[in-house]
């Protein structure tokens, strides 16, 4: 299937074009089925490509397919080319696989929406862009996808655009991402100047062979990280992601949890030789930003009441873990966590969508409770996701988070402590959410009046087309860890480090060596410590929210996200806006004023000169006489002609 790897992005393109031309005729649910079928087709081709690669020798697992010459000018030659290698195929597998499940879910979730076909139009365009991003053979093709997913994210966040908040959130996401894009563009320019190409093989090859100067590599790495911080919602650019929850929930699951937001992590992994070739402080910055983001977002998640906001901050936090992994050279762990996170976070977002659907668009957790009785399947699958993200073995999240923490300790004890504290908080806020939504007393009954239109308000379980994806994702969240099991005594040899072996050719230059470090020797104890942290977080949350042993600690400051967003908005709305206004005024008054002033000046001089033109002969003759006298005086007296 490697020869037809172009089919992977081409199928969603066909789906997009079909819905574009026939969308209204296809209607509901036809458009949804077309879109889902296109993504399923991509998935199957990717699976085929995966087995093709698997059958090849490890060092030759790479297939480049040049579609056409895209931007050729003199020394700059950029092809529209796809690269199938272990990393891109891993990404493509979960993008198309989870993408397909979310398409199915969305057919049920978007039922009855007047813009049903348009939703799937955007969704297919998104999958197309995301696949270009991960399959790109060079930075520019990736950037095409990178901006494409950004545009789709904009369309989909502001999908319900008559709502002012949705429109604002979409714009904010796009503009914030553009700040990151500035970094990616400059990184490309720097790379082109240094090695005459923007293809991954040239840049990484130069980095590996030492042809890339360390200062250049540092510049490229950090500029790309600016882009990654924008796309993957890291400090200080994370603030668009919580707002992005204005989009329909399948969008939150697909774009803002499973796929698009991991693009930054992917890019860093793709460029790992360049990061390895850069100065030591570059990966350290990445690790610190990741760790601080993880902790920062986790503290905010503790005090959120909107079911999706909790998940959004949780996503920011988990992405922080991935960058922590990237910064400590744990690329395999980063990809591993990316995959498991895609499973359980997509699951929980879809679960929250199912809840919101069942609750008639109620998102406030304070009005939920005891939903497990009316929505058993949603509750059951959500609980699996909760255990996975909290780090309870043997669920998927435990393995990947444990591996990140292991590498972190080997790199810096301080970062490790931040990672552990975040793990406690993660277990705490997720337990809080599960308790508030699915357990305790049913608080929705007392709020039934708010939904007066329905008369009798009763949450209901979602239709099968929404539940099947939940069940599949729950299964993956349970067993997802098998792709990369650590080398513990009881785990058979053949099951250990499968992802690591698979990704080895790609991440080899940048991957940190963990064997032989003190952390590695103590790994069993560390795993126990991580489990204890998870247990601590869960127990504390149960004590507070289920048993009522202590009053909830949800300070206003955390609920409002440390007021970071407010501060930025206040700055943009205040001094920022005034500065912009000042420029506009400067233009109309000073720059244009100079022009108008000149014109007025010329006119008034002309006006005065015109007054001389009286038409009376005596005036003219007086001027002539005066002139003659003047000339005579000039020659006679001053020049002394006579």
């Amino acid at each position, binding site marked *: 299937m490697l020869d037809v790897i172009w089919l992977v992005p081409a199928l969603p393109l066909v789906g997009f074009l079909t819905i574009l031309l026939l969308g209204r005729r296809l209607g509901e649910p036809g458009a949804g089925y077309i879109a889902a079928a296109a993504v399923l087709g991509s998935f199957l081709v990717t699976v085929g490509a995966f087995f093709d690669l698997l059958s090849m020798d490890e060092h030759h697992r790479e297939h480049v397919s040049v579609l056409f010459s895209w931007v050729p000018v003199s*020394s700059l030659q950029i092809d529209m080319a796809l690269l199938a290698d272990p990393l891109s195929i891993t990404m493509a597998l979960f993008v198309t696989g989870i993408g397909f499940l979310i398409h199915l879910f969305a057919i049920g979730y978007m039922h009855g929406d007047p813009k049903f076909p348009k939703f799937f139009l955007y969704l297919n365009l998104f999958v197309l862009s995301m696949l270009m991003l991960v399959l790109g053979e060079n930075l520019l093709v990736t950037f095409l996808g990178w901006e494409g997913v950004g545009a789709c994210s904009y369309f989909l966040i502001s999908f319900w*655009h008559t709502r002012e908040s949705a429109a604002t959130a979409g*714009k904010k996401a796009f503009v914030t991402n553009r700040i990151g894009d500035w970094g990616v563009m400059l990184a490309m320019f720097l790379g082109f100047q240094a090695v*005459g190409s923007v293809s991954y093989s040239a840049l990484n090859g130069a980095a590996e062979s030492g042809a890339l100067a360390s200062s250049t590599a540092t510049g490229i790495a950090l500029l790309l990280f600016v882009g990654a911080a924008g796309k993957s919602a890291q400090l200080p650019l994370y603030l668009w992601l919580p707002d992005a929850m204005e989009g329909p929930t399948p969008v939150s699951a697909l774009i803002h949890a499973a796929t698009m937001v991991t693009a930054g992590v992917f890019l860093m992994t793709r460029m790992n030789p360049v990061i390895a070739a850069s100065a030591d402080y570059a990966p350290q910055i990445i690790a610190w930003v990741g760790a601080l983001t993880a902790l920062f977002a986790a503290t905010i998640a503790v005090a959120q009441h909107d079911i999706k906001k909790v998940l959004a901050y949780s996503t920011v936090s988990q992405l922080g873990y991935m960058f922590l992994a990237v910064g400590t050279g744990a690329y395999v762990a980063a990809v591993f966590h990316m995959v498991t996170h895609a499973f359980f976070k997509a699951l929980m977002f879809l679960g929250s969508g199912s809840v919101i659907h069942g609750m008639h668009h109620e998102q406030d957790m304070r009005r939920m409770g005891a939903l497990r009785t009316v929505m058993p399947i949603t509750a059951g699958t959500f609980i699996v996701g909760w255990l996975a993200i909290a780090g309870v073995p043997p669920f998927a999240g435990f393995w990947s988070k444990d591996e990140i923490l292991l590498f972190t300790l080997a790199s810096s004890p301080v970062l490790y402590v931040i990672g552990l504290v975040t793990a406690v908080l993660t277990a705490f806020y997720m337990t809080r959410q599960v308790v508030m939504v699915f357990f305790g007393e049913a608080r929705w009954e007392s709020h039934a009046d708010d939904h007066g239109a329905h008369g009798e308000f009763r949450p209901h379980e979602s239709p099968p087309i929404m539940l099947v994806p939940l069940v599949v994702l729950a299964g993956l969240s349970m067993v997802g860890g098998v792709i990369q099991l650590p080398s513990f005594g009881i785990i058979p040899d053949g099951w250990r480090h499968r992802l690591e072996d698979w990704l080895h050719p790609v991440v080899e230059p940048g991957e940190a060596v963990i064997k032989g470090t003190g952390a590695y020797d103590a790994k069993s104890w560390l795993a126990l410590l991580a489990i204890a942290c998870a247990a601590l977080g869960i127990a504390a949350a149960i004590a507070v929210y289920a048993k009522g042993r202590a009053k909830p600690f949800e300070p206003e400051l955390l609920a409002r996200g440390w007021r970071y967003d407010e501060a930025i908005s206040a700055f943009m709305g205040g001094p920022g806006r005034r500065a912009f206004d000042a*420029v506009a005024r400067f233009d109309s008054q000073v720059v244009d004023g100079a022009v108008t002033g000149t014109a007025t000046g010329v006119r008034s001089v002309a006006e005065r000169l015109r007054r001389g033109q009286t038409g009376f002969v005596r005036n003219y003759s007086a001027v002539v006489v005066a002139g003659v006298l003047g000339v005579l005086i000039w020659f006679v007296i001053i020049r002394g002609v006579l």
Partner: protein
Amino acid sequence: MHGAADFPLLSMLVMVPAIGSLLVALSPRRRPEYAKLIATVTSVGVGAMSVWMLRAFDSHSGDFQFVSRHPWIESWGISWHLGVDGISLFLVVLTGVLFPLAIVGIDPHNDDPRRDKPYFAWLLLLEAGVMGSFVSLDLFLFFVFFEIVLVPMYFLIGGWGYEGRVGAATKFFLYTMLGSAFMLVSILATVFIASANGLGRITFDLIELAEGASFAASTGRWLFFGFAIAFAVKVPVFPLHTWLPDAHTQAPTAGSVVLAGVMLKLGTYGFLRFGLYLFPEAARWSRPLWLTLAVIGIIYGAIAATMQGDLKRLVAYSSVAHLGFIVLGTFAFTSQAITGSVMQMVNHGVSTGALFLMVGMIYERRHTRQIADLRGLQHVAPVFAAAFTVVMLSSIGVPGLNGFVGEYLILIGSFLTARWWVVVAATGVILAALYLLWAYQRVFHGEPDEENRSFPELRWREGMVLLPFIGIIVFTGIYPKPMLERIEPAVHDLIEHVSERTGYVEPQPTAVSVDDGHGEGE
């Protein structure tokens, strides 16, 4: 020089619209419908010829093609010398395609149908002037066409514009005339000084002057600045831009489309054809000035655009920013940057032309251009909104659409010779997203209020006019190669010429030879 030279294609491109204009002027007063008919036939014919030229153009050559050269005023060395190369090719085609769309697709809204006659006559004369400017290879001829352009534009703005049209038209005319005065002096001085220094005879021929004459550095710089002022006003380069928002806002839709689409490019094209080519030394020498003004224009234009309340003014200021990119690329002196600049001239013409068209459609429906009066249009006119979105994303420079390719080439090429300017200029892409998306949100998003609820959806005729724009936007974004490979040879020759004259060496990043990257020898 070209095989098809027997047919005077370029002369036809210039003369046919001029004759068409005359025919419209002579058409019977009582049959105003003849005016539009003649204008349509003429402009479509010219458009077809320009497209045919695109097909016949030899993409491997950087020389002038379809050259036609006839002595005109022999004693002064003035000749009817026309030619087209990669730098002017797409501007000619753009002119050829844009005019029929403007003539067929935009209703001038004349209350009195007899006013159609002068309207179409002026438009055709404008087309002749623009075409002539792009294909002239004789300084005198160029100046004549460059000036002819002003007259019809003045009357179009003054006669068919909006409330403040007279002031805007006068400002436009005087401002650009002032610039041209400097150019006229420079042209005459160039010719005479050249004849005294090396050439030995009076000639206005561009190629003879550029290849044969040599100026002392200080002389060349004075002469260059005479030209540069005229072009800088036309582009417009900050701080000479304030005629543009007024002219754009007050011009009728067809005027704005042509103004943004092709007329501003007379300035950027002039810089390449007459600035860099005639005075390489002076252009190199004054490079920091132009780069700085370009970058200021990019940021400043974008910030000013953000704060505009009038849609047309917003698009006008966005033009200041976009043309800043083109000037940046022009003075970067690398193949990528200049090729990107030439491409961006066309891209800006297409996307800004389309933006003005659509703002015109909004005005036609709502009789306002104020952002504050508009709301929720996407809800009532989704197809219109979708078309606007594509054009907007092209203007923002989203990859996959045309605007990105040009901008990217300009920036990556300029980075090689003007790194820190590019670092600042690249922030322009953030601001572009800001002002356009903010305006889009206020106009198209939200719940439509009473006045906007009955906003009519895109009509068939309007869709047919927009379709070519959107087609070009998508096609050149995904497959720019046919365009780039035609532009590049001419750009290469131009840089070569600069190198010969100034000793400048174009930086060529060469691929580091890599033994296939991934772990061969392990």
